[in-house]
């Protein structure tokens, strides 16, 4: 029986899936961050830019679809978070906007700012986007300062229902170390994924050596951030919501969620293990270049589990630290049953979309990218 509650959970599952795919696809950002760190000469940098340049639109489109799907299924989040944490979202957007033009502009005559500037825009997007997106997800655990009052619509002079409670408009999130650690964790992971992707996609001996040594450093950084974040998540109090929709703080809520939802716990552990396996095999097996095929799905699973952790089992996924009862839950922020049903039918196309993307990705990536190829075909 398809109930309203089921539809809400189904749509949260899709949001989790899109979130997981988005973080996996942040390998584009992670690899771009390495343009100058791993790319020691023009050939190598050109290889990196052209390799991510054939994938960046997928990441970008996933971000756009993530936004659209959130809008369609949980519009109160769209309204509260985007309208509230104004500066964070604007910053994220600006870094992506610069990224979007940089590929096309960087090597073309007449680009005004020169090749290096555009590559720096890619590097900037490469570090800022994962950090900011990660920090924003961090607030799913720590809360944000907003108040939602739907009665405001009846107030002719001041009808806005969502009100952010400080002037930093989202930038205050960096004041909480957990959010920063979360952002860094996502960033370090993105760089690891970026290195794994390049090792798989590009063929260039010197670049490969540098990528492997860079991977080692960022893997260690990631492990430190990951352990710190996980330990805190397990120990911190969480935002619980009861059957009446009343939100309260409960000690060890996320730990309890893991224990009460063994599938989510399993998904998280499998995901984490796959990420580690992918990286470790790449580091210790000579010439191994398929790490991304372990770590990529691993990232999708682990991130999905994190979204499920904050949304399911009576948890407020976008909590308000200013007014507990304003916190967003699946039930109080979702679309109507009719819309969720209509969109659930639409969602049946997703496997088909994923399939054709995967098919053509394989077609395009049968051979690793080489300088030789770039010299003889279309390139950025």
């Amino acid at each position, binding site marked *: 029986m398809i109930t309203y509650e089921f539809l809400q959970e189904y749509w949260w599952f899709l949001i989790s899936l899109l979130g997981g795919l988005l973080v996996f696809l942040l390998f584009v950002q992670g690899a771009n961050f390495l343009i100058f760190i791993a790319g020691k000469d023009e050939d190598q940098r050109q290889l990196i830019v052209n390799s991510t340049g*054939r*994938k960046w*639109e*997928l990441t*970008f*489109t996933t*971000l*756009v*679809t993530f*936004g*659209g*799907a959130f*809008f*369609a*299924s949980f*519009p109160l989040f*769209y*309204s509260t978070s*985007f*309208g*509230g944490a*104004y500066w964070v*979202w*604007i910053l994220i*957007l600006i870094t*992506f*906007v*610069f990224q*979007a*033009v940089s590929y*096309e*502009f960087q090597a*073309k*005559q007449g*680009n*005004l700012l020169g090749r290096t500037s555009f590559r720096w825009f890619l590097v900037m997007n490469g570090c800022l986007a994962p950090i900011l997106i990660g920090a924003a997800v961090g607030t799913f655990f720590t809360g944000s300062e907003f108040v939602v009052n*739907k*009665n405001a*619509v*009846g107030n*002719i002079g001041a*009808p*806005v*229902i*969502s*009100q952010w409670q400080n*002037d930093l408009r989202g930038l205050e999130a960096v004041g909480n170390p957990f959010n920063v650690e979360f952002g860094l964790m996502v960033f370090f992971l993105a760089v690891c994924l970026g290195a794994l992707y390049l090792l798989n996609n590009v063929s260039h001996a010197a670049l490969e050596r540098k990528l492997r040594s860079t991977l080692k450093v960022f893997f260690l950084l990631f492990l430190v951030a990951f352990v710190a974040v996980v330990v805190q998540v397990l120990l911190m109090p969480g935002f619980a919501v009861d059957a009446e929709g009343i939100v309260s703080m409960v000690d060890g809520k996320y730990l309890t969620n893991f224990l009460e939802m063994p599938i989510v716990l399993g998904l998280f552990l499998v995901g984490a293990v796959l990420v580690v396996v992918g990286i470790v095999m790449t580091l210790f097996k000579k010439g191994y270049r398929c790490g991304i095929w372990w770590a990529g799905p691993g990232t999708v699973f682990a991130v999905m589990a994190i979204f499920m952790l904050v949304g399911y089992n009576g948890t407020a996924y976008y909590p308000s630290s200013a007014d507990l009862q304003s916190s967003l839950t699946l039930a109080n922020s979702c*679309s*109507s049953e009719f*819309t969720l049903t209509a*969109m659930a039918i*639409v*969602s049946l*196309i997703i496997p088909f*979309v994923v399939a054709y993307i995967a098919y*053509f990705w394989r*077609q*395009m990536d*049968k051979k690793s990218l080489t300088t030789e190829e770039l010299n003889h*075909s279309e390139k950025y």
Partner: protein
Amino acid sequence: MDEMTLVDWSRLQFALTAGYHWIFVPLTLGLAVIMATMETLYVVKRDEFWKQTAKFWMKLFGINFAVGIATGIILEFEFGTNWSNYSWFVGDIFGAPLAIEGIFAFFMEATFFAIMYFGWNKVSKKTHLVATWLTGIGAAISAVWILVANSWMQHPVGMEFNPDTVRHEMVDFWALVLNPVAISKFFHSVFSGWMTGAIFVIGLSSWYLLKKRETRFALASIRVAAVVGVVGTVALMASGDSSGIHVAKYQPMKLAAAEGLQDGGPQAPFSIVPGVEVPGMLSMLATHDFNGYVPGINDMLNGYTDAEGNVHLSAEQKMERGKTALKAFNDYRALRDTDPVKAEQARKVLDENVEYFGYGYIDSPQELVPNVDLVYWAFRVMVGLGSFLLLLMVVVLWAEWKKKLEGMTWLQWVALLSIPLVYLAGQAGWIVAEVGRQPWVIEGLLPVKAAVSSVSVAAVQTTFWLFVAIFTLFLVIEIRIMINAIKQGPKISNK
């Protein structure tokens, strides 16, 4: 001038983003069809010339495409960042087409764009051709969904107000998708893209003719573009005609503003420019009947009875009923947990007046009139330039047919100098559509001032100027890069 308010800045920022976005999108829509046609000729005729021709226009397509994407993402998120109340109040309806756009169209564009660019040696000739077409079709599908969303703002259908959740909720998905306004708007927008692509290709090819280089390439490009352009522009005018009927029916205030019609009635005249009118023509265009009744601005403010005997309330009466609806809403919200009987009574009053809910926020009848001068002149710019450009394409096509184009330097100059005009026409079109809808963000349901986010004016001013700087920088760079690429040319032999 009064100091600009938060709503003004937020509107300005949205208009800036949408306006910039619409510089890049129509070229994407139109050029896609033109270069896909060229590649089809390559596959069918097995003539390398067509491949090189298609590839040159693809190069320009790619430069343009990137900036379209960059401005597009801002547009999507601005619904949340700057119009947060809107996002909740109608998100149940409005969010769906945006999500569908992403799932159906954007992934298609992204996937096949990469194949179109980098797949020449990686996939078969036919797969590549399919990829090129699918890139363009993906762009057109994305236009379907964003225009479904926009048309719903012009003519909201298929929803119901729910005071418990305090928003409008979708009750009929197909009413939303098959909204007649959406259908004509889709064709009108997509075909305006064909016209843009055609004028762009004809204009630039004319430059090669003027320079007496790449002649074969230029003439061949002109032939394809002019055919696409003439077909597109005829369809553009047909869809414009049905758009006119819809505006008359669903947004009479927009029509009155576009015509500067203060006092209407049957046999309403069409104004060519101030002082020059065609009697009865507006009635004909708006209702397809010379005696059709077209209300003027004053009629709508004072209330009127149309030809079918339907009584239309005055602005004051609508505002009164809007205030009643808002009061009933407040009563219902206050009483629903404590006094179900009284709450039910309030709910009944709300239901009776909910149609005028948005008017409850309006302070004076004058607020209901959009900027008449701007809409009036924008409409004339759109129609005037559109007609001129159609004529131009027909003449170019005729001249090329008669093999005279190569010698007609004046026509080549006119074509080259017409490139900015097609952009002006497109921008003017959106000004008519969007400024003409004011003060509503959703016609009759929600005025802009109740839709805006609660952000400081300073914050919006900052992002506005930031976007001005960024978009302008991108536009300048794009134009410079394009000029460079055009100067280099396709480097195809004239054989």
